């Protein structure tokens, strides 16, 4: 496969996944603010998670719900706004439309054609929750079309890898919001913390799973366990690395990126929460994000840059 094609496929799915995750972050913020959370504590994380804080500050200044929503959803100058992501996903898909199944292309194209009509006024009228749900639906459709129609060939592996590299990064960032001081022993949380971790779980559709798996109450350590180590939780770091390792193994068993992914995967597969959180959840999250970025860079070097 052409290196450029692989690159487009990989970024197509990364951008689609990113759009979905921004919807999830906004969902957390919205839930918290409805439960009476302080404005800044609720909405600033949307900016920090997305790495958009400097960009926002220079354009808007004070953190307000309307400002954050406009920036994270609509702002074309913000490369990681939902609209920018959906546009980038569509542009990447457009460049490889001869390679991907037509159903996949049509779903991405239709998503963009609808998304680009959204304005501040329409977003208000429709409501943030409805819009975020719609973006999540479109992302599910994208993944379903990918999984249901693509040949299990190189194109498929690059597409899947984009999804899981991005998702691993986003889950880690989500965990990092109130990570300071959290260790494997942090079993108690004050009511405000409780609300926060419940919102985190709900944003990744993991609340019910948590309740079923962890009989004791909601605790930061429990949430960290679920979203880092449980391989049966599809948005956990472990689950993402499971997929990445398999895709890389299929693409090139002897490549450097495959070795790196294997190492990272082994730590999540065999590691214990106490040692992973030894330096605190924030340290664990930052270290994971760095290594995930290094892995992504190695994938680029091994496949996407070409000769």
């Amino acid at each position, binding site marked *: 496969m052409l290196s*450029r094609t692989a690159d487009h496929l990989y970024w197509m799915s990364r951008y689609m996944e990113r759009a979905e995750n921004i919807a999830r972050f906004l969902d957390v913020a919205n839930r918290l603010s409805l439960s009476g959370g302080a404005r800044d504590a609720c909405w600033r994380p949307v900016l920090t998670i997305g790495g958009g804080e400097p960009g926002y500050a220079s354009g808007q200044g004070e953190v307000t719900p309307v400002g954050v929503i406009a920036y994270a959803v609509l702002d074309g100058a913000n490369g990681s706004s939902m609209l920018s992501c959906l546009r980038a996903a569509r542009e990447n898909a457009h460049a490889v*439309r001869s390679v991907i199944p037509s159903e996949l292309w049509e779903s991405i194209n239709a998503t963009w054609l609808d998304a680009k009509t959204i304005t501040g006024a329409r977003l208000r009228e429709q409501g943030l929750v409805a819009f975020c749900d719609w973006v999540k639906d479109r992302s599910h459709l994208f993944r379903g079309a990918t999984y249901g129609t693509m040949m299990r060939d190189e194109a498929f592996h690059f597409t899947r890898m984009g999804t899981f590299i991005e998702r691993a990064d986003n889950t880690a960032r989500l965990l990092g919001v109130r990570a300071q001081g959290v260790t494997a022993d942090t079993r108690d949380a004050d009511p405000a913390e409780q609300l926060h971790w419940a919102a985190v779980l709900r944003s990744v559709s993991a609340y019910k799973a948590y309740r079923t798996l962890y009989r004791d109450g909601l605790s930061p350590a429990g949430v960290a366990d679920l979203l880092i180590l449980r391989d049966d939780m599809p948005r956990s770091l472990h689950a993402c690395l499971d997929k990445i390792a398999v895709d890389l193994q299929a693409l090139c068993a002897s490549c450097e990126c495959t070795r790196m992914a294997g190492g990272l995967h082994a730590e999540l597969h065999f590691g214990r929460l106490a040692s992973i959180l030894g330096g605190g959840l924030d340290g664990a999250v930052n270290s994971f994000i760095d290594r995930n970025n290094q892995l992504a860079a190695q994938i680029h070097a091994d496949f996407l840059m070409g000769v």
Partner: protein
Amino acid sequence: MAFDEMKAPQGGVRSSYRAYENWLLSIAPDTLPRKHAQADELFRRIGITFNVYGDQEGTERLIPFDPIPRVLSASEWSRVESGCIQRVRALNAFLGDIYHGQEILRAGIIPRERILANGFYRPEMQDLDVARDVYVHVAGIDVVRVGADEFYVLEDNLRTPSGVSYMLENRAMMMRLFPDLFALHRVRPVDHYPDLLLKALRTVPPAECDGEPTVVVLTPGYYNSAYFEHAFLAEQMGVELVEGRDLFVDDGKVWMRTTRGPKRVDVIYRRLDDDFLDPLAFRPDSSLGVPGLLSVYRAGGVTLANAIGTGVADDKATYIHVPDMIRFYLGEEPILPNVPTWKLENPDDRAHVLEHLGELVVKEVHGSGGYGMLVGPTATKAQIEEFRAKIVAAPASYIAQPTLALSTCPTLVDQGIAPRHVDLRPFVLSGEQVALVPGGLTRVALKEGSLVVNSSQGGGTKDTWVLEDDAC
């Protein structure tokens, strides 16, 4: 009154449209507009769009699709088909000749300077042998009709003719919208076009190629107006769609960059103009091409389809000579005649044309896409005067033709069904054999009375049906 494809001159409908008319009378009045809207929606979703140069706002537009088919009977088609094959055989022979011995120039049939001083004549091609002596692997021959038995060739497109994806998508759309119509008609299929194309490309590997040739489609990229078509054809043929930056030259061969390292490329179906192919040989500012491509091509390391330098044969100044080429190379009489054409460098012709500008069509010799042309009967006084000045300033850059009453075909417009002028572009493939699928792209001028069918000028398209047998 122009000849109508559906209505017979003596009243009633022509036989090829009989079943269609019965169907039309049987459906609810809102059926066509409803299906039309549905088609628009589907095309937009599929992303069959067309980028318009110099149009900021609508950079991606749909080519209007008309839901009423253009129907040709088996015998009408067989004439167009054999005429197109004959023409393309002669044009390929002509290109082989002028890039080798130049017999036709020696015989004085075409003036030497007209060819050798032509900007599209490529000295780089002189004495270069191409696989199977095929220069034009894909040709679009624009055919117009003015009467029941009167077909003319209006133009040959021998460089990178486009539109074939619309032929295929229009058929797919019609089958989706009107399955019942296909049960009532025996319409000859067109969807094997990509197979024919791939087969043709595989039969022209370069001299330096062992084993199955690797074929790719080379596109300028997704901002190009015909990007959809490039992607579509690559997908349908199951070959890579490459841009210039995906290819490189090394060791006298062309390679593409893949996730598993470099891979050899043998046949390039390129949808990039000559000028942009190789910045080392042609335009140095081209970032779309492949540095060193020409040297590999000249050494027989790669096939380009179409070959470099075919523009010299589809130029409107060369067009005049195609009937002579057919006689010279094939010893046959042209099956499809040319439209009578005045050469404006010739003083008698020029005087006549300048006197009758209001009745004639004037075209730029090197123009295409419906740009730079004057349609006398619909032009304003100012436009006519503008062309008069241009012709006087550079007569050799223009030709003139009578304003043909192009045939009309019933077309869905805001007010209902009305006749609109159409042409037909069949796509002729040359490899081991010369072949075409039954049909082509019917373009329709949607504006009342307009004779300009180009999509860049507001034209639309129709599905073209070639019926299996003549209806009795």
